[in-house]
């Protein structure tokens, strides 16, 4: 436990200091990776723990992106504030969608989640006079921190780092807390949950709201970072699938799985596009093959072998240092009340 705390603190320190010395390209890559890690974490709450395969997860990103951007463009409200309005809307919409769709299971929930994100995308396309239709809303770059706009990239980096830490904290408390247990139990057997008195619908809705809360801030960050919002960019079915796939490959229903999945796959994808520019589709093949392999060989995701490996290493290290307490190996399984 103490060792993991040390590791976490070291990681945070590094991610604060290192970027000062990084190239623009590296920073862009990190920001992109952080955003996808956050989305994968958000997906994991509902898709990993509760096993409701949401394939429209970026809908919350889109709602917040459009909300804060439109509030800014039409009413001059700073995106910092607009972001909170967007988050509130996302969470509220998650509650409504959840209430309506959580009686569907498995494939039907998955299909419905696709249909829902399509509805949002098409509505954003249709109401051209407000949303700019397919071309979207474009922001003019300027240095204006009050309005969430920077010419330098570092502020964006630190903001995304902040959001990342926030989402990991939420995920941590979820994993260790009561809701996490409920969701795992729901993922295992919903009927058995009802049979011991758990109101499954209620906790699924909570989970979806939490999931929206985690994903939503990325919407404003994304809009302010790339300076435009389009229906295809934010209400994106391909991105939504990708988010789910990264979490599953990393290890769904675990704290670290989605983080690992996204932090391996996004950089890998970016590196491939650099080295094999012109070869379209290579990233899809890699996603596809990894997904097939994971489902067939290690359904727990790559976190499974990785965890064993790391545990083995720590064991060896501890044996070397001859630490007296065996505590560091024991996963703390305390259930919060």
């Amino acid at each position, binding site marked *: 436990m103490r060792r993991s705390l040390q590791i976490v603190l070291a990681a945070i320190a590094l991610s604060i200091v290192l970027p000062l010395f990084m190239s623009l390209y590296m920073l862009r890559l990190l920001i992109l990776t952080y955003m996808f890690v956050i989305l994968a974490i958000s997906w994991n709450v509902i898709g990993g723990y509760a096993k409701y395969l949401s394939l429209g997860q970026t809908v919350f990103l889109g709602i917040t992106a459009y909300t804060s951007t439109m509030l800014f463009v039409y009413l001059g409200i700073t995106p910092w504030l607009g972001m909170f309005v967007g988050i509130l809307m996302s969470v509220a919409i998650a509650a409504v969608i959840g209430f309506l769709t959580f009686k*569907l299971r498995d494939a039907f929930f*998955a299909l419905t989640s696709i249909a829902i994100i399509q509805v949002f995308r*098409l509505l954003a396309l249709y109401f051209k006079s407000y949303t700019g239709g397919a071309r979207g809303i474009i922001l003019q770059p300027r240095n204006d921190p009050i309005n969430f706009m920077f010419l330098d990239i570092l502020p964006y980096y630190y903001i995304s780092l902040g959001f990342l830490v926030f989402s990991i904290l939420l995920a941590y408390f979820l994993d260790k807390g009561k809701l996490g247990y409920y969701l795992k139990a729901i993922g295992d057997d919903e009927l058995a949950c009802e049979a011991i008195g758990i109101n499954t619908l209620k906790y699924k809705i909570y989970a979806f709201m939490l999931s929206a809360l985690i994903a939503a801030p990325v919407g404003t960050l994304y809009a302010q970072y790339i300076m435009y919002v389009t229906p295809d960019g934010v209400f994106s079915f391909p991105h939504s*699938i990708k988010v789910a796939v990264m979490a599953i490959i990393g290890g769904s229903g675990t704290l670290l799985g989605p983080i690992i999945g996204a932090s391996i796959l996004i950089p890998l994808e970016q590196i491939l596009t650099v080295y094999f520019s012109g070869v379209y589709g290579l990233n899809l093949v890699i996603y*596809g093959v990894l997904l*097939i392999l994971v489902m067939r060989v290690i359904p727990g995701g790559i976190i499974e072998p990785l965890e064993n490996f790391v545990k083995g290493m720590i064991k060896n290290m501890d044996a070397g240092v001859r630490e007296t307490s065996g505590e560091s190996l024991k996963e703390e399984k305390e259930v919060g009340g």
Partner: protein
Amino acid sequence: MVDVNLAQAIVNGLMLGGIYMALAVGLNVIFGVVKIVNFAQGEFLMLSMYSVYWLYALIYLDPILSIVLNIPISIFVGWVTFKYLVKDVVEKGDYVHIALTLGVSFMFIGLAQIFWKPIYRGIPTEYATWAISLGGVNIGVTQLLILLYGLFSAIILSIFFRWTDTGRAMRAVSQDVMASMLMGVNITKMYTLAWIIGILVTSLAGNFLATFYYIHPNVGQDIFLYAWFVVVFGGLGSHIGAVIGSIILGIVQSVATMYISADLSLVIVFLVFILLLLFRPEGLLGREVRK
């Protein structure tokens, strides 16, 4: 007097329905028997369209005539994918099924993009422009063909499931695996067969579709969701339902596009889909929780 434009929109919708029908019938067989939600179904259509395309581009084989070659190719593709990708996970539940078939779908789309580039291709056939004119309403011959193919495959499969021993055994498997196992039905064989039939029906639609539709790595994805709509709408496992569902979806889409807007017509389609799932789930899901 019926408005000619409206009549034309309805006819176009009917033809559009033919495309959905062909895909939905295949989905239905696989979902009905193997109980797999195949997210890669559209990609089998896409692959088939490419094989039709290359048979045309390389040896100048007419897309409709190439059915003769496409039958063994599709059977082979179905057999290989079942044996090496799907077979071991049949028992594993929707979650694994969806993730695995999503993986297959990604892989196929990616491969198609690598080998054939994400560019729109088409096969310029002579008969692509042929049309039958009925009182000012034009019916494209190629579109008519795919509609007929959809109807034909639905009818053939209904007959197969009702009147042949294999078909009946398959239906038994779809209703109660344990019971059919005890009756001595070879479950794995039935699954393999159903999977191959599902892939074959969808793939051959590619022959007809390629005569007038664009060929692109994403073509399957674009149609897939609508095919699911049809399957859910028509009632899972019901071929007649799939036929009716396809026609309704096609017509609604086409008429709404004409009178409202293309985007909004799709919104309507998706909303109907969601509402349908929400308010008739038992009837449409067709499987209640046991014990």
